């Protein structure tokens, strides 16, 4: 695929992610923060998000699997996951966390388990999307082009 085409694909794909609510303005902020002094900034942050989230999801699974669930702990994890996802603009994950927290407050295990499933689902979805996006970016750069961030003003 030639660079121009790749760039167009990138733009379209990014736009769709925003439209579908996977990503929000914060992600744009991240992209804008990236510059020559730190050309892999977005990739670094996103990778960190993946690591962090997977750890938290594991902790959550374990915590909810206990005989007697420690909701405070669960809530603390969800709070962290919410923060993390909001830092990169993973909107749907963040929203799922918000719902999750309210069930934690109610100390409703069943609902919490459902929420956990929901959060995991959203997480894997956005992870997939972001990986695709990053791959596209890397291809563009490899082909000698640059990622058309400026086209993201929509």
């Amino acid at each position: 695929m030639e660079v121009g085409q790749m760039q167009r694909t990138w733009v379209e794909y990014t736009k769709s992610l925003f439209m579908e609510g996977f990503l929000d303005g914060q992600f744009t902020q991240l992209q804008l923060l990236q510059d020559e002094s730190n050309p892999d900034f977005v990739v670094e942050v996103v990778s960190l998000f993946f690591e962090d989230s997977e750890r938290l999801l594991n902790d959550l699974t374990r915590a909810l699997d206990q005989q007697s669930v420690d909701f405070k702990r669960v809530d603390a994890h969800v709070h962290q996951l919410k923060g993390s996802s909001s830092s990169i603009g993973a909107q749907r994950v963040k929203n799922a966390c918000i719902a999750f927290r309210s069930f934690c407050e109610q100390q409703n295990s069943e609902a919490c388990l459902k929420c956990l499933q929901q959060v995991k689902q959203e997480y894997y979805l956005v992870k997939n999307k972001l990986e695709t996006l990053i791959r596209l970016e890397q291809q563009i750069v490899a082909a000698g082009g640059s990622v058309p961030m400026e086209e993201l003003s929509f």
Partner: protein
Amino acid sequence: MNLTKEKKSMSTASSSVGWKAGDVVPDQFPAGLRVLVVDDEPTWLMVLEKMLRNCLYEVTKCNRAETALSLLRENKNGYDIVISDVHMPEMDGFELLEHIGLEMDVPVIMMSADGEKNVVMKGVIRGACDYLIKPVGMEALKNIWQHVVRKKRNVWKHLEQSGSVEEGDRQQKQSEDVDHSSSANAGNRRNSKKRKDEEEDAEERDDTSTLKKPRVVWSVELHQQFVAAVNQLGIDKAVPKKILELMNVPGLTRENVASHLQKYRLYLRRSSGVSQHQNNLNSGFITPQEATYGPLSSLNGLDLQTLAATGQLPAQSLATLQAAGIGRSVVKSRIPMPIVDQRNLFSFEFPKLRIGDGQQQQLSTGKPMNLLHGIPTTLEPKQLANLHHSAQSLGSMNMQVNAHGSQGGQNNSSLMQISQSQSRGQTLNEATGNHVPTLLPSSMAQPILSNPVVGGVLARNGLTENGRGTEYNLVSQSSSMLNFPLNSAAELSNNSFPLGTSPGISSLTSKGVPQEEVSSEIKGSVGFMPSYDIFSDLNQHKSHDWELHNVGMTFNASQQNNSLQSNLDIGPSVLSHQGFSSSRRTGQNSNISAVGKPMFTAGDASERVNAQDVGHFNTFFADNSVRVKSEIVSDANCQINIFPEQFGQEDLMSTLLKQQQQGHIASAENEFDFDGYPLDNMPV
């Protein structure tokens, strides 16, 4: 990525140092601003670091508050500003804020995805200079340098103004100037000007709510010396004078130590977990529930003694007040003082009011402390002076107030009882438990004047945290000790302490005191007095309250919202809120801007500030502002403004209660908008 110190290639790193001297700001400023960012979330930490670096700041990041604190301790002047997340495991942002306020004088910005008013309020009260909601934008970060400049300028102003000592006569100490001596080691930029000799702040801010006095910078070493001295003396017996002697630091004034001690006490209290306060507070002031007098008592003791010395306040009243005040306020926050500071800040316009409300978790005095440090120290002398005045007035007021409820003189005893009970009930940290009997009144008086902040703060802390009833009292006392500019006191009073929560009376006292102090220009904010009486009247409350007001405080009448609400025994909670709003309204309470302080010491809190009482109060508030005019009080300029402006009693009460629970009580800020509350009787 816990700690990474990123050195910017630019040499601006030195620029931050360079602009310490005087107000010269290097050309590249704010580039090179040394920022310490603390957040337990790795992704946010990375994003923030990048954003800050894009602003050309020199960024150091850490993911734990403890790490941040040790970094700061190692290099006190190594950072220009700290940005910290609120929710972190183990030590959270507010605690860090308090510590920083106690030990270093660095501006702190709080940050969180949680933008809930209560939480933001906590930050403000504890002295955060700003609160950012996540996601944080570049624009917000680009502007953080303003806080650094502002702080410095305030310092300088103090120094410059120190020359004019209007109230200097009142101050017993001469320039506290704290900064100079202690900051020396810190190489405080502020000190570079060292004008200090004079003044401490001559600025007498008596009525200016902003205290701009040179602040003593409590460096780690200095703080260590302080702690060593306190431990040597025993926390209960640690009085500023002795501590000062033991520390033997040239240039450090007793006021500096006193205010710092207050903060420290609040801090201790907070860290020791004062949950008892709540219980106590609720029980009403009369019952010593909060015996937090301990810490305060020592503090108050000092002040009270001073006050007592002035002969103005009857020993009994002092004791009562103290007991009430100390117990309450102390209980809550570790160090009443810090709280006060914060509170005061709040009300007054302190740039950083960091009212350390003791919200249980921490006496966020962190920030306020700084302010307090600077201010109280200098103010103290003045405040003390004021306090004396106020004490006197208060004394009379108390008497009067008490009289209303119980009957003249008896109030004291009742107060005393209250305080006693409080002290007993609460194991004041200080263990003094025994309310400083006799001193109370004086302390109360003091707070009003100078400590408004303290009182308020303490009160606030106490209230918010515990239940406040007693705590507030203590707070107020502390405030008095601090001589916070009335402004602060006002705030304190507003802490609306426990009106709702605490047994009514107890809360009142605390409230009354702090608040009054602040708002009234008078330093002596007599305002508190009323609150105390309330306690005595507790039972009588409602009706008494007003009477009290009449006494010295023109509670109702003055719409003036000026200062805080003084003691209207009106349901504490109610009052407190109202007080603030009203005070605000008056616009100027000039001094005190006790703003927000929910002063309402409305009446008798006799413990119940309940709505019913509120009803009473409303009537009082008819004018909303209960002003304790100096004339009445005799010197006490404190105007106790009970701003009940139109608070629906129930609303107020519930608000207060809620606030107390949330510990916000300190929200002296105008956040309380009581306008919406319809007060039955209060013709607003």
